Structure formats: structure tokens, C-alpha cells
């Protein structure tokens, strides 16, 4: 049984902004409720007001224009999975949406809810870094501001959202033409222990790396790109990817010991899965089929 609350269903952003501005953190933004309702059942959060974002004009849209894919905060994972627009512009995002949580969560859980809750084991927070994602935040007082996803997610369950702001959409930049990507998530628990996303652009002969993007998440306080390795891989022959090494210290890559495993174990697995993700992205870039079946791993 939940504790009683008032449910408000604004139809426009200004209406939503007014309610949020009035109640601040006594109100909770509510879309799918997949995380919120569970916390409420546990009594860990006790909002007096739930603000349903699902009827606000514009938050449920997907659109692509001017080289940007925009996904509204209230779009469900199920919708992303099936969206021809997402498939056309960021196919990896649509394919990975198929593997978020389980089919029931995908029916109601939203992109905005996932990012705003900032679960340290989120798939989206890691994967979207590959696309130089930015989030749009809106408040009645300040209007819209936009910030990089890397700055929005500050730590476990902690974001840069102020308590009078609502996340309205996430903006992704498709990979460069010809780039091939892969997302691997590893773990035996309900949420992944490790997520690695990789994208490679190969040279015209498809023998060397022209550009690389790598994101690692779930193991530390927040996901991150591996900027050092990305630079180091430029010009590398494809054969060298199998031996790619992550310099955790140089990358500022941290892992946290918890029920998913020790910090050392997670860093070791990061090494393994970065190589696997690079290998898979390279194979796709060379239009080769390889066996990417690994224990307890979803390979997207």
C-alpha cells in the first residue's frame, strides 16, 4: 500500500513548472514510476504530490532534425525499441532499449526517468555518452538549460537537476557515417555489473582505426568516456584492438566494491569487456560476423 498523495496532471510545461515551483522537493516527478513507486512502497520517499509528466505536450516525442536525435523524457524504452526514427539515426540506442530491465519495465519505464534517477547501474547513462548526449532541463523560473549528460549525472542517484526543474528531453548525436558500435552489458543480477559501449570509425581500407569512442559504466560512481584510450587507438591496426589496455589511473576510472564484486574485479572486467566491445565494433565495421557470445553478457 502506498501512502496517500495528490496526483497532478499538467498539460503544459508552464503548468508543470508552476506545480514544481510551488512544492519543490515535496513533489515527485512521475512518469513510469518504476523507481519512484518502489521507493514510495518502502517508505524511503514520501512525496505529498506526484506530478505526472505523461500528459505534458512534447515530452513524449521522438524527432530528428539538424543532426540531432531528440528523445522526449516521457518516451518509454518500449517506444525507443520500436521507433523507426531511432533505428534510422542511432540504431544502437534502439537495439539496446530492447534489453533494459525486463519487458514490463520497458512498457512503462521512460528515458527521462532512467536518466533522472541516475541509478549507478543504468544502461542508458553509459550508452548515451557514446552519442555526446545532452539533456534539456526546464523550470518555470529559468526556462530551458542544456547540459552534457556527463555533467548531468553527478554520482549514484545524484544529478544536476535542481528541485524546480524537469528533464524534458535528451539530445543525441548520431555516430559519424560508417562508424560501427557495440554495447556489452555483463552481470548476473537484476541490474548490470558492467556496461561498455564502443564505436569505431575505420580508415577506408578498413585496416586501421580512424576514430574511437568508449564508455564504461556501472562500476564506479558514474559512467565515463575513456578519453585517453580513445586518443591512443587512433591509427591503431584493427589486430591491435585485442590487446587494448585501459589505464585506469590515467582515465580516472574508479570502481566501487559492492555486492556486484570488488573494485579490482570490476576493473579487471572492464579491461576484458573493453577489448570485447572493440573487437565487436571492429568486426561490424569490417562487415564481418563474429561470435560475440560471452557468459552472462548481453551483446547489442
Amino acid at each position, binding site marked *: 500500500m502506498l501512502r496517500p498523495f495528490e496526483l497532478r496532471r499538467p498539460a503544459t510545461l508552464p503548468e508543470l513548472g508552476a506545480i514544481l515551483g510551488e512544492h519543490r522537493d515535496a513533489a515527485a516527478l512521475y512518469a513510469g514510476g518504476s523507481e519512484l513507486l518502489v*521507493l514510495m512502497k518502502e517508505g*524511503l520517499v514520501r512525496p505529498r504530490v506526484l506530478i505526472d509528466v505523461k500528459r505534458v505536450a512534447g515530452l513524449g516525442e521522438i524527432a530528428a532534425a539538424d543532426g540531432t536525435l531528440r528523445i522526449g523524457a516521457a518516451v518509454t524504452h518500449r517506444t525507443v525499441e520500436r521507433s523507426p526514427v531511432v533505428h534510422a539515426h542511432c540504431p544502437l540506442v534502439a537495439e539496446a532499449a530492447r534489453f533494459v530491465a525486463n519487458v514490463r519495465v520497458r512498457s512503462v519505464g521512460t528515458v527521462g526517468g532512467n536518466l533522472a534517477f541516475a541509478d549507478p547501474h543504468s544502461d542508458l547513462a553509459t550508452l548515451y555518452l557514446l552519442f555526446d548526449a545532452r539533456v534539456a532541463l526546464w523550470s518555470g523560473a529559468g526556462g530551458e538549460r542544456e547540459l552534457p549528460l556527463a555533467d548531468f549525472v553527478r554520482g549514484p*542517484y545524484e544529478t544536476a537537476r535542481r528541485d524546480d526543474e524537469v528533464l524534458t528531453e535528451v539530445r543525441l548525436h548520431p555516430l559519424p557515417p560508417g562508424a560501427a558500435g557495440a554495447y556489452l552489458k555483463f552481470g548476473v543480477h537484476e541490474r548490470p555489473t558492467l556496461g561498455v559501449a564502443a564505436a569505431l570509425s575505420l580508415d577506408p581500407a578498413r585496416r586501421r582505426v580512424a576514430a574511437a569512442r568508449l564508455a564504461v559504466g556501472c562500476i564506479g*560512481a558514474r559512467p565515463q568516456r575513456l578519453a585517453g584510450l580513445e586518443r591512443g587507438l587512433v591509427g591503431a591496426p584493427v589486430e591491435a584492438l585485442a590487446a587494448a589496455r585501459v589505464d585506469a589511473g590515467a582515465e580516472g576510472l574508479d570502481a566501487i566494491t559492492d555486492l556486484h564484486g570488488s573494485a579490482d574485479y570490476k576493473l579487471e572486467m572492464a579491461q576484458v569487456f573493453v577489448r570485447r566491445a572493440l573487437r565487436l565494433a571492429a568486426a561490424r565495421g569490417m562487415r564481418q560476423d563474429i561470435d560475440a557470445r560471452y557468459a552472462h553478457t548481453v551483446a547489442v
Partner: protein
Amino acid sequence: MRLARELVIDARPEALWALLWDVPRMAACVPGCSEAQEVTAHRTYRARLAQKVGPISLSVPVTVEVTAAAPPRHLALTASGRDPVVGAEIAMELTLDCEAVATGTRLRIGAEGHVLGKLGALGHAVVQRRAEETLDEFGRRLARAIGS
């Protein structure tokens, strides 16, 4: 959970001790700590500790007891309390050691204890991280308060 911090404060140990021994004033340097009041001078105090850990807000009425005091070098306290709303229990031992150095006082802060209850659903790492941030800010505020 065990944490330690060390910082050098631009003041002599006696000056720092004067701040620490004024327990309500020292407690005000703990982020989220308010309503600090004396029950028995230099023995027992009460305060309220408010923190937000992710989406979860805590408000814990704590009892603070001085367990050891050796001016101006060493102060040990315990703080314990329970947030009945969230069901979070806090029990911490805090040690503060002052050592004279050329530029002032080296203050070593030690904190050991636990946070129990449903808050654990967020994972120990989240709680530890918040505790570390709190301790860091405590050190910074002590250094600022010394000036005033």
C-alpha cells in the same frame, strides 16, 4: 564504515581546541547539522542531522556524547540517533586529534560507525560517499570558522 581526513588549519592548537570544545559551535560546522544544544556541558548534547542521499531525505535527531577529552590534543565523541520516518539508524564515533605544526595545527579527523536500515537499499557505497563528502565539508568549515 571507516573514514579519515587530515588537514592543516592556520591556527595554534589552543585556538582550534577552543572551537572544538565549544561543541554546539563545532557541530554547526557539520553540514546538515542544526539545532545543536547542550544537555550537560562538555558531556551530552543534542542536535539534528539532515541529509539528502539521492532521492532520500533524512532527518535524524542525534545524541552526542563526549567520550574522551585531553585538551588541546584529543577529543572523542559519539553521535547516535534514528530517523523514524525512513527507518535509518546512525551510530558514529568521531575522533579529533590536534598536533602543532609549523604552519598551525594538523587536525586528524577519524569517523567510524554505521548507518543501518532501509537506506542500505541504496548500497553501502552511496552512504560512504555521502559520509566522505560530509567529512570533507566539515574540515573546510572548521578552517573557516577558526578565522572568525
